[in-house]
């Protein structure tokens, strides 16, 4: 399996608060990795540093052979690193179809591999996430789970190599969690490497081939899910002494 993402010694501070310290992580192409940790453990900061929303102060991020450290977020997306947001952030004045058009125009068409049939691609993406026929609706008319699906469809519209799904199931019902889970698994089968950040352990365990645990900005475990959850340090972080 070829290495897609290689993070070494990643560090980030906010004033005196150490959000991330010396985080190392390697992910191979096609892998499904779960990233867990208690609230405030640095998961979102880690994602933001990977995606370019925040600049890491120490360490290096290599993605698909490129060093990302000084690259703006949009350039990382163009290289194939896409994300969905913890709280869905659709473009509210644009329809669902137009929301998908943005990454197609600004990512796929800038790769110089010819132009896609945008409407057909939008319909294909909407079919994939189960929003068939909703292209003309505004995001405000979508339910919570539909909003999450739009968020994932928009990330997929950029045709990423690596998708970071940041708490894509938060606040959803049991059935809705299963829907999103099935969707993420299908995306992975289509060849997209996925990092899933999640608190719902049932989903994490079902999805992940590998589990990484962050606590207080440090990586404390990385391995097979069944082994990681039995790790005493992980138990301590979640359940206390």
């Amino acid at each position, binding site marked *: 399996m070829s290495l897609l993402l290689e993070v070494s010694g990643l560090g980030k501070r906010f004033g005196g608060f150490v959000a991330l310290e010396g985080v190392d992580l390697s992910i191979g192409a096609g892998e499904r990795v779960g990233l867990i940790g208690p609230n405030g453990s640095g998961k979102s900061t880690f994602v933001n540093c990977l995606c370019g929303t925040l600049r890491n102060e120490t360490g290096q991020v290599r993605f698909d052979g490129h060093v990302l450290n000084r690259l703006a977020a949009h350039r990382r997306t163009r290289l194939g690193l896409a994300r969905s947001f913890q709280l869905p952030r659709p473009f*509210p004045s644009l329809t669902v179809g137009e929301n998908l058009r943005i990454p197609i125009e600004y990512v796929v068409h800038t790769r110089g591999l010819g132009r896609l049939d945008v409407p057909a691609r939008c319909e294909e993406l909407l079919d994939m996430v189960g929003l068939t026929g909703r292209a003309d609706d505004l995001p405000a008319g979508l339910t919570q789970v539909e909003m999450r699906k739009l968020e994932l469809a928009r990330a997929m519209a950029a045709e990423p190599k690596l998708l970071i799904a940041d708490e894509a199931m938060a606040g959803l019902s049991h059935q809705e969690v299963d829907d999103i889970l099935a969707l993420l698994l299908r995306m992975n089968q289509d060849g997209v490497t996925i990092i899933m950040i999640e608190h719902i352990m049932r989903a994490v365990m079902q999805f992940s081939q590998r589990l990484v645990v962050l606590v207080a900005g440090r990586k404390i475990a990385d391995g097979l899910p069944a082994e990681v959850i039995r790790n005493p340090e992980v138990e301590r972080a979640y359940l206390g002494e």
Partner: protein
Amino acid sequence: MRGKHFLLAAVAVAALVFGAARLVNNGYVFFAGYVVLQYVVLATAWNILGGYTGYVNFGTAGFFALAAYTTVALEKLTPLPLPVVMLAGGLVSGLLGLGMGYLTLRLRGAFFSIATLAMAVVAQTFMVNWSFVGGSSGAFAIRPPRTALFGIDYIQYLFLLMLGLAVLVIVVARLIERSRLGDGFAAIRDDELAAEASGVPTLRLKLLATALSGAFMGMAGAPLPYYVTYLDPPSAFSLAYAANTIAMPLIGGTASWPGPLVGALLIATMQQVATVTISSAVNLLIVGLMLVAFVIAAPYGIIGWFGIGRPDRRRGRKRAVPKLRERDA
């Protein structure tokens, strides 16, 4: 309507407007019409940044007056044909927009707006202290009675140039709306973080918007010395330009190019009528009252009454995919 057809239609409407004004054969029509057209340009230019990307610029007077002073400086250095001077003014203000954008576009919301206002104050202070262009005592520009190019009255020539500029800025604004650039601007306006995550180069697009908007404002300001014949900092940098230029798109609607056009035609015409029938002192009162009325009664502006730019009226109309297809065809 395709771009070429729209351009032809816009030129035809402009020709009709000029022909009708010539038919009236009254110099005041051209004097008043010039101001109305100037506001059409300013409002549309403002909307490129303020309406499309959501960055509210309070510094219109700075871009506008800087180009007017460029005209004064060029007049003293080397007199050039007015269209060339307008291009030079547009270039100077466009560069100012680029510089201002680079310095301030990391600011958002009210902070950006205050920074643009500060830019106009700094530019005014600079002009007050630059004696070459008249300093605080102002500068005179001699308006020739006729233009050599068409042999028409010079004020008609100014009117014609502003009419041409209005056509240009409207065509460009429409082109932006219907292009990838317009989608990028809309994404920035809606959510900058999500736009960046969707591959939109937000900083580059915002710089482009400030430069374009500033350049058109500058092109509108460049003929000002020949219109007023006397230019001094307080009138050139008047806050009324900023207030009018913000109010017109808001009243007309910011979502699409007809909004600033309708807003400017309505407000500027009312102001011109009020100037001759009551007093120019009521001009800002008109703007203030209209703005309050429209914010309450028509938050999407006049064009919102017709469903243009109203997200709530778009739902269920089943047109985004056909629209996508139409645009990609």
